[in-house]
């Protein structure tokens, strides 16, 4: 998994590529926790993400909770596989997927 961050004022774009699962999820979790301070708009670019597991969802949910308090969070470019996971888990209701 690779993580690419782009800070534009209070808007942060994080590009995640590869797989987001048990092994890699803590990495993203740590990255976001360190970067979300003062961010009002978080964009997660999932165009390079292969798939996601519940461990990844847990990170996304945590990030969503934080962003609910200080701004907004958008997930972009998720593929079919990732979207299926979101659908199955009812994440579409919580997350903003464009």
């Amino acid at each position, binding site marked *: 998994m690779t993580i690419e961050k782009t800070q534009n004022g209070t808007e942060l774009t994080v590009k995640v590529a590869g*797989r987001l*699962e*048990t*092994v890699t999820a803590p990495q993203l979790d740590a990255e976001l926790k360190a970067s979300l301070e003062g961010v009002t708009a978080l964009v997660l670019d999932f165009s390079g993400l*292969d*798939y*996601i*597991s*519940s*461990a990844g*969802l*847990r990170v996304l*949910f945590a990030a*969503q*909770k934080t962003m*609910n308090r200080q701004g907004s969070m958008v997930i972009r470019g998720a593929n079919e*596989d990732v979207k299926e*996971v979101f659908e*199955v*888990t*009812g*994440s579409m*209701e*919580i*997350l903003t997927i464009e």
Partner: protein
Amino acid sequence: MVYFRLIIAAACPVLATAVLYLLSRKTALGRWSRTRSQLLYGLLLGGVSVFCSEFGVPAYGVIINVRDAAPLSAGLVFGAPAGILAGLIGGMERWFAVYWGAGTYTRLACSVSTILAGLLGAAIRKWMFDDKKPSWYYGFAVGLVMEVLHMLMIFFTNMSDVKQAFTFVKGCAPPMIVANAFSVMFCLLTVTLMGKERLRVDKEHKQLSQTFSRWLFAVVMAAFVITSLFTFILQNRVSISDNTALLWLNIEDVKADVGDASDENLLRLTRSVAQDIEKAGGVDNSLLYTISAKPGNDFSEINVVGEDGIIACSTNRDYVGFDMASGDQARDFLVLLEGEKTEYVQSYQPTSRNADTYMKYAGVALADGGFVQVGYDAARFRQDIDQEVVGATRNRHVGETGFIIICGDDSAKTVVSSPHGGEEEGESLSVTGLSLEGLEEGRRYEAEVYGVPSYLMYTVSEGYYIIAVEPVDEVLFFRDLSVYVTVFMEIIVFAVLFALVYLLIKKLVVENIHRINGTLAQITGGNLNVSVDVRTNEEFVSLSDDINSTVTTLKGYIAEAAARIDKELEIAKVIQSSTLPSVFPPYPDRTDFDIYATMDTAKEVGGDFYDFYLLDENRLAFLIADVSGKGITAAMFMMQAKSILKSCAEREGDVARILAAANDALCEGNDAEMFVTCWMGILNLATGELTFASAGHNPPVIRQGGETRFLEFRPGFVLGEIEHLNYRTGQLTLEPGDEIYLYTDGVTEATDAQLQLYGNDRLLAAMKSAEGLSAQEVCRLVKADVDRFAGDAPQFDDITMLHLRLLPRDKITVKPEMDSVERVLGFVEDTLRKAGTPEKILVKMNIVTDEIFSNIVRYSGAAQASVEVAVADGEARLIFTDDGRPYDPTQKPDPDTTAPAEEREIGGMGIFIVKKFMDRVDYLCRDGRNILTLTKRFDPPTP
């Protein structure tokens, strides 16, 4: 000349035998049929017998010949038929030879003896020497016995005249016996020498019959000598004492005859003198002269003795007045005065008056008292009775041919009477060649009389020397006869005894011993089911029974020992098999390989073995080996080899160096001269790299990429024979799913009832048919195929095999921790992709693997977990197994997927995803393990 001719005759059979023997050895004669050759030998030696018969040597009034030698030699040297034929020819010729001049006296004896000689030679060869030629000294003995028999035959066929027969035998026996015996002996000796045999075979141990023969010979010889000597001495004594008695008896007879004649004569004269005196009425000297002068009164003296015993008148005046009582000789006459006797005659003896004067007196009592005594002097006496003496002695025989000689006691000893009659009478005794000079009267002497050695004895009586003579030959005839007959009979008896003892020992002892030995040889050869059964006499019955009971006991012990050995072998088998890895699967946690091995021993313990062990986590050493030989020693060597190989494997890294080191260790102190063949491989499980080396072992079967073949590789030399050998390492790489099958020659060399070998081709075919089976199934299949092939044929060798299979990598077993998650995920993805799983499904499978395995890592507390991937029949299946806390995810309630983010239960989400993504989720808790099976169809079920 006589002896020279005898030697020539005796040499004939020797020469004939030698020539025939040479011909039979060097020419076509040796290849003739037995009948033909025996006929030839018989005819020719029969001819020699005839020749020897005709070539007889006249001596001692008989014909000495060596007729018996040829038939004897024929029988002894060439065979029984030849001997019998030669004997018949010789004997018949002798019978008819009387028509052209041969003697009739011994006709029967000689004919029969010659036939007997042939029979004897034949019988001795056949029965005493097992139809083989006897030693030369037996030839001498047989010749000697045969001739003795011949001599006895002469006796027995002429019993009517023993004396003549004896004379005959005495003359011819010694030369004939010696000639024949030597002839036969030289026949055998010549043949022995020509056959290049040794004359004397020195054996370390004498034959029983020989020992008996020797002792028998010694004892009988001693008895023979003693008896002969005793007979001789006794017969000699008897003969001499008989002779002495005979001589003396004759002397006494003659003496008595002479005395009687003389007494009668003198008494007659004395009576007539007494009548004359009584007729005259008175007596004086002149009357006496007158009477004395009367014709016919040729006496020398008349004395008339008065009643007072004094000579009253005499023709010798000097005697008148002589007192008859004054001398012994004269006093004897006084009995006439006592009135009891009227006549008295005295022998010729010295007179009382003068001891030098010999006189013979007779006295007759006179009617009117006193008596008249008339005396002869020597000259007158002899003159008076010579005629009487001659009459009494001339025709007298002493014994049969002995005689009496009488001569006077004058100085010339004039012969009065001799067997030669008048021509010698009046001559001196010296004409008989006899001199009595120095000989004592009444004693027996030996001297030549008329040139014949004779015994003699003499006495002097009435003025005569009476000499009795008997020839020595006559005296000793019975002695010699007895000695000859005794000696001959003893020789025959000895020969018969000797032969009898020889045959009896052979028959009763030697043959029985051979029979027993034969059986014993069978018994020592291992056949304990035979029994000795010699029941000819008690000793052998006892021996047989003893041996049989020993064998029975032995059989018992052997059975007992066999049972014990069986038990020990059983134990050894247990020990042996306990040293081989026998728990399968040996590494239940290894998913990368499958190994199985089996050993079926032919005997209770065998020399085969297999072994395998992990040198480290990824290196598996495995080997198969075959120790030469069987049984306990092979098993012990096998144990040693096995432990040496293992310790070498732990020390050395390279398989060739392991074998080299093991070889050196096994060579050390390998007193049993055993060896091991071995094939050893080391497989790197991580890389699939296999290194291997072979010490003279069969090539394994390898299945690589679906191709089944023998792994041909030049093997090194066997282990345990030669030190400091190098082995070569072979190398190849195995992929998962590849297999290798090791075996011993018990597999390929198993035989069926027709002794055909199972062979490589059948093995390869069996291995091909076993594709896709587990290691255990492969081993079972091959063993079953071998068993089917062998049928009821016994198993000769250990059948040992080891199968190693690299498992296809569709299962991964790991320690459940975060670090292994990626491995598991990689494994699942790889496996599914290889199996051709669609990409869409693949992602879902990855997600569920992540969910389930991360749960196991986080919550189960398991020490081990595995994931097995199976793709078949259009669906993919994942089987998660862990030994953690029992946990059934299917029972977990679904999370609320409509709750806002803040309230969401993150924990249940993973399982929920799994349930949603998979077609089936099955949970099973077995043997303390959680087994979760996830199934996903490739094509979603049509709604």
